[in-house]
């Protein structure tokens, strides 16, 4: 029971308190690039969550059973990026074969995920924090949910901003950054929620 509580706390703190986008600054590129519409933002979030959960498990296994067992820590970056790139490729082929509908919704976002630093950041944070296998997968899933939450929220705000009277020079990226800053302030309010 104690362990279950720990895992639940880890999930909540990953989604809200240490939000990958707004607090850790990982995955800013898609956050700014693919957040014009709520619908596409949600699809991107879904695809990212899926890949993140798989990546967390896969990189944990590789790090523990290959890199640490054979004492090859200097290959960490090279092997993680290969794992992520091939995982994304594999997921793309798998979805294309099994579910054309899902492929249509997620298809164009999948290649973009390879260079999403949230995924690589996740792979690097797991060995740093020394999580167990289950904790790693939960951490990956929580990170994905946090990413989806942030990108859907900002997309909703940007849809409204379209009709706002924004000064000409601030249109586009600058105003999105300022709105994201205000969102980050709001997320700071969660910081006292649980202590880990």
């Amino acid at each position, binding site marked *: 029971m104690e362990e279950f509580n720990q895992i639940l706390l880890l999930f909540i703190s990953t989604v809200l308190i240490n939000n990958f986008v707004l607090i850790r600054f990982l995955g800013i*590129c898609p956050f700014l690039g693919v957040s014009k519409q709520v619908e596409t933002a949600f699809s991107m979030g879904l695809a990212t969550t899926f890949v993140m959960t798989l990546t967390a498990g896969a990189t944990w296994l590789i790090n523990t059973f290959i890199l640490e067992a054979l004492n090859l820590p200097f290959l960490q970056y090279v092997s993680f*990026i290969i794992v992520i790139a091939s995982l994304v490729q594999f997921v793309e082929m798998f979805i294309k074969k099994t579910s054309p509908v899902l492929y249509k919704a997620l298809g164009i976002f999948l290649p973009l995920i390879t260079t*999403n630093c949230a995924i690589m950041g996740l792979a690097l944070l797991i060995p740093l924090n020394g999580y167990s296998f289950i904790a790693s997968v939960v951490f990956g899933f929580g990170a994905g949910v946090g990413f989806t939450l942030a990108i859907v929220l900002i997309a909703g705000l940007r849809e409204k901003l379209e009709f706002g009277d924004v000064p000409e*020079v601030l249109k586009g990226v600058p105003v*999105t950054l*300022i709105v994201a800053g205000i969102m*980050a302030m709001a997320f700071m309010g969660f910081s006292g929620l649980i202590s880990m």
Partner: protein
Amino acid sequence: MSIDFKELIKDFTNGLWAENPIIRLVIGMCPTLAVTNTASNGLAMGLATSFVLIMSEIVISIIKKLIPANVRIPSYILIIATFVTFTDYFLKAFFPGIAASLSIFIPLIVVNCLILGRQEAFASKNPTHRAIADGLGMGIGFTWVLTLLGMIRELFGMGSMFGFQLLGEWYRPMVIMVLPAGAFITLGILVGIMNQISREGK
């Protein structure tokens, strides 16, 4: 083979303003926001990224004819990852303080879209000397924005610059500037100001 210096200068200055990676192209945003809480962190991150960028542009522009077109992206990433590992071990050995404060953002240079983007857009199509000019220009363009952002955030957030206390006892630091929220807002305003400057220049 003669070297056209005018062309080289154009390649170099391109990254400083006209196609500045952060302000104009809006790429490489994660380190831009994450490690600019102090001026020296911003400068160190900029230099580390520039080193990886220039070295991989040199290597890729030399071996571009040997790389088959359909596996070029994985090959580029491998070359970049090699230089990033090198940089990371170098910083950990000689500058442990900087390595600790930049933490995972050094390995994350691997997935910085600025670096991969320049290989795809420039190094894979141009001769080596032009690739060096482009790498230098883009690297300096990236570094100066990071350093400026770090200077602004450190000045308002801690009243200091590069670690030296500039503002006296009377100044009450705006802690928000060194927190994540401050990063977003400062960069947003900075990009807005730059937009205004380049509009007036036209």
